């Protein structure tokens, strides 16, 4: 029976539906059961066949979520790689290119405006296009075009990842320059830095601080110093490094540096690698280990894949958006990479007159463009992009410099990586290495015929001031023509083999080293060209530990596979070994509770294990000790801990160094006073926070870029207490955010290899390989085989068609 009441109810319900449709259509489209876009990728069966104009290929995922991609032609192979990477990591690929192009704010809002401003002003996009210009006509052009077509086919026909739905946007078409832009993200992240501004600022603000930033740390653990045997090929050593130029700036760049420091090479970015020749390995064959320490994300920064094409089969890892493995192994060679940390970024100041700057004896016009940054849910911003002959201009807080960075010109490293993948022996590998411009990397390699090799590879600029070579650790006076890299053309093609850069043959190398490793420490004590200063290289603790463990294994005979694993799993901190005696010497000045806490350190094995109370005490004490030593000189001058010197420098300060004196007190403090105060604070802090062991502070928090909001927190990986620290081979940095650590571990021998990632290989949340078993294995220092048989039933088949 129909009444006015029932009609009213029906109308009300209808209104609710209509209102929901109008006001909540996005939410409904996202969350509707079954049909909501959030659930689109729950079931991915049915995407079996893809048409391609490049020829047939197959993709078969193994039990670890690693795609095995096979094709009879190179172009067909890379088309399939593009499609597969987009299927598995499209959101991340798009995020990387957006970040580097300065296009985040259009989807992320005003929080990313400053990031966009910086990246637009640096014009990384223009640099990527310049690089693409250089690569056209080379052997990577066709593979890169095929890869791009594969990505775009997926964008056109595939199911978009959930992240696009959550944030309601779509990816635009992929281009070859986008791939190179992703490469710029990696190369800038490893070599882009403003230490020249930092150094100038500290020098200006903190009197006498020059002693804290020596040209070289006083250790004898450089890469070449520790390398065993082998034939060192260095045509000129024991020459003094270049002179500092005449125009060492005393200006204060604090405001500028504060704004830019968030965009420079991150803390904790480093790596380990080592190599053992067949003469020294238990198997009689060479072995190679590598674990790059990069930021830890969900999904991981690396995408693992195995490619089998007409020319080679290769297994390795690439950044999502990059077609070929950057670290890996093929049937004939394997290679591993750590960052040299070379100084390939310089800054220049000028006299300015409006948009004109004085250079080369005349007033020159800077090129000026204005762009609009579209901001989601906010007013648009404009950004002025200025460039000089040296590069892009950055201006903050009234301080202005131009930046020369090697990656702003047409560099050739994609050719090198493509060559590595296909190399049929050490000779071809070394030929490919000649194209390796950036980022300067300690490259170790081995070949199946038993050869081993090491070279700090990269292109190193030579700075000239007043006709002489000068070092790059300064802000150059661009108006006076200081610090010029001859032949360098930002956003153009430079002669990288010309007089403006160190000749390839002048860079030392080691042929057939017996056993050696690198861990971002100083490359060599004496080079006949400028590579960088202590600010550019890591403390030597990891490098020393690699050497110590190699030495220990060799003393027992040969190095076994298990010992290679033990090295990557090693949690012994040589930094702790250096600092703990300082704490133990100060017990007489501590409170009773602090003294009892310090007793934990007496007899400790210096292993940074999650269940260790001693590791907790040491970790917190070191933080307080460092702060209490430097904060009174740095913070009152507006400088935070990012300006503090290296840990090695702190450890080597004499007991009565003036840096230990607390300027806020009348008595003159010594090292023991500060060590005792730091332990008192440590004890109080541990008591207050209720911490039991190192695992309470050393927590793994690997987050998704969207994971900061409650609604998308499920995309973050689960938290776990972790072993390891910033100075251990088993590398993990709990601070700052995002965390950093071993982003890929690999140990290879001829025709076999093991490895593990800090997370799943696939970016699809619904996949069992989103977190995967790898995260657990990675935490526990376990491995799986790299070369597996995925079975004969492909998950995706590419067939001839229009594409």
């Amino acid at each position: 029976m129909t009444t006015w009441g029932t009609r009213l109810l029906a109308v009300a319900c209808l209104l609710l539906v209509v209102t929901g449709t109008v006001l909540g259509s996005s939410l409904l489209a996202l969350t509707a059961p079954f049909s909501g876009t959030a659930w689109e990728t729950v079931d991915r069966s049915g995407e079996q066949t893809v048409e391609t104009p490049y020829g047939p290929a197959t993709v078969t995922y193994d039990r670890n979520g690693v795609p095995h991609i096979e094709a009879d032609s190179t172009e067909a192979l890379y088309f399939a790689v593009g499609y597969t990477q987009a299927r598995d990591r499209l959101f991340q690929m798009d995020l990387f290119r957006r970040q580097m192009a300065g296009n985040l704010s259009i989807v992320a809002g005003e929080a990313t405006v400053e990031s966009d401003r910086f990246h637009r002003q640096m014009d990384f996009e223009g640099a990527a296009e310049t690089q693409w210009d250089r690569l056209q006509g080379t052997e990577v052009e066709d593979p890169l075009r095929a890869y791009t077509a594969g990505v775009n086919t997926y964008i056109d026909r595939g199911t978009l990842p959930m992240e696009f739905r959550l944030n309601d946007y779509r990816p635009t078409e992929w281009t070859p320059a986008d791939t190179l832009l992703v490469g710029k993200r990696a190369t800038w992240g490893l070599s882009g830095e403003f230490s020249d501004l930092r150094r100038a600022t500290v020098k200006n603000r903190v009197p006498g601080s020059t002693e804290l930033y020596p040209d070289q740390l006083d250790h004898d653990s450089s890469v070449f110093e520790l390398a065993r045997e082998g034939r060192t090929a260095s045509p000129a050593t024991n020459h003094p490094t270049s002179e500092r130029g005449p125009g060492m700036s005393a200006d204060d760049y604090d405001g500028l540096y504060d704004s830019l420091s968030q965009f420079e090479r991150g803390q904790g970015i480093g790596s380990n690698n080592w190599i053992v020749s067949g003469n020294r390995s238990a198997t009689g064959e060479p072995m190679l280990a590598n674990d790059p320490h990069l930021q830890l994300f969900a999904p991981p920064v690396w995408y693992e894949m195995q490619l089998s094409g007409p020319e080679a089969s290769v297994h390795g890892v690439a950044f999502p958006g990059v077609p070929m493995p950057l670290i890996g192994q093929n049937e004939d060679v394997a290679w591993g990479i750590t960052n040299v940390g070379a100084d390939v970024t310089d800054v220049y100041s000028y006299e300015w007159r409006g948009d004109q700057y004085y250079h080369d004896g005349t007033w020159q016009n800077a090129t000026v463009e204005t762009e609009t940054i579209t901001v989601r849910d906010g007013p648009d911003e404009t950004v002025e992009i200025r460039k000089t002959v040296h590069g892009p201009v950055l201006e903050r807080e009234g301080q202005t410099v131009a930046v020369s960075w090697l990656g702003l010109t047409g560099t050739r490293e994609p050719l090198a990586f493509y060559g590595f993948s296909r190399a049929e022996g050490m000779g071809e590998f070394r030929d490919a290495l000649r194209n390796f411009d950036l980022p300067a990397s300690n490259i170790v390699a081995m070949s199946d015929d038993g050869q081993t090799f090491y070279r700090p590879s990269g292109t190193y600029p030579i700075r000239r001031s007043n006709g002489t070579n000068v070092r790059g650790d300064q802000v150059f006076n661009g108006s006076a023509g200081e610090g010029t890299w001859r032949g360098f053309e930002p956003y153009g093609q430079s002669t990288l083999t010309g007089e403006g850069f160190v000749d390839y043959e002048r860079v030392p190398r080691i042929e057939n080293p017996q056993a050696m490793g690198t861990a971002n420490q100083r490359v060599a004590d004496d080079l006949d060209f400028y590579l960088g200063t202590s600010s550019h290289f890591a403390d030597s603790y990891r490098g020393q530990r690699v050497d110590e463990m190699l030495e220990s294994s060799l003393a027992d005979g040969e190095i076994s596979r298990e010992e290679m694993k033990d090295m990557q799993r090693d949690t012994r901190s040589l930094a702790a070994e250096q600092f703990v005696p300082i704490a133990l010497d100060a017990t007489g000045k501590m409170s009773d509770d602090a003294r009892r806490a310090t007793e934990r350190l007496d007899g400790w094995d210096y292993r940074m294990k999650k269940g260790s109370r001693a590791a907790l005490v040491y970790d917190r004490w070191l933080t307080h000790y460092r702060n209490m030593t430097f904060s009174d000189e740095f913070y009152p001058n507006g400088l935070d801990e990012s300006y503090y010197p290296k840990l090695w420098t702190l450890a080597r300060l004499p007991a009565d160094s003036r840096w230990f004196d607390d300027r806020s007190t009348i008595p003159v403090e010594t090292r023991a006073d500060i060590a005792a105060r730091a332990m008192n604070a440590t004890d109080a802090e541990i008591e207050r926070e209720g911490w039991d062991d190192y695992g309470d502070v050393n927590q793994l928090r690997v987050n998704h870029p969207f994971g900061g909001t409650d609604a998308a927190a499920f995309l973050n990986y689960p938290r776990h207490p972790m072993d390891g620290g910033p100075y251990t081979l088993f590398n993990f940095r709990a601070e700052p955010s995002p965390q950093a650590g071993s982003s890929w571990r690999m140990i290879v021998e001829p025709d076999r290899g093991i490895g593990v990632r800090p997370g799943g290989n696939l970016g699809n949340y619904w996949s069992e390989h989103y977190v995967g078993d790898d995260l657990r294995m990675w935490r526990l220092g376990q491995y799986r085989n790299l070369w597996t048989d995925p079975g004969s039933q492909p998950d995706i088949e590419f067939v001839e068609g229009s594409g």
Partner: protein
Amino acid sequence: MTPGEWAGWLRTGPRSELVTLVAFVLAVPLGTVHWLGLVAGGALVGLTASSTRRALVLGVYLGGVTVLVFVGWLWFAGVLGKAIATGQLFGASLAIAFVFPVLGAAVRGFG
């Protein structure tokens, strides 16, 4: 028969339960295609009811079944745990699955 007589014939007597069952069988898959299908399914089931009150009850039944089918689908796909972990997302989906058929069933109030 007039439309009113036709509706009355369907909604009463021994055939009415069969008609409701058929409407249910059609309504559930309808809801998997689009969220408006949940409303349409609810309306379809509701229109077979002998009264508005009965229609709302059937809407609740349909909503419950839709929730169960949705949860079962996720379980079968092996992602139920992950779906629950999404929190707000999963909660919103369950709410939509349950409420929209009821709203659709209220159309019975027009007659």
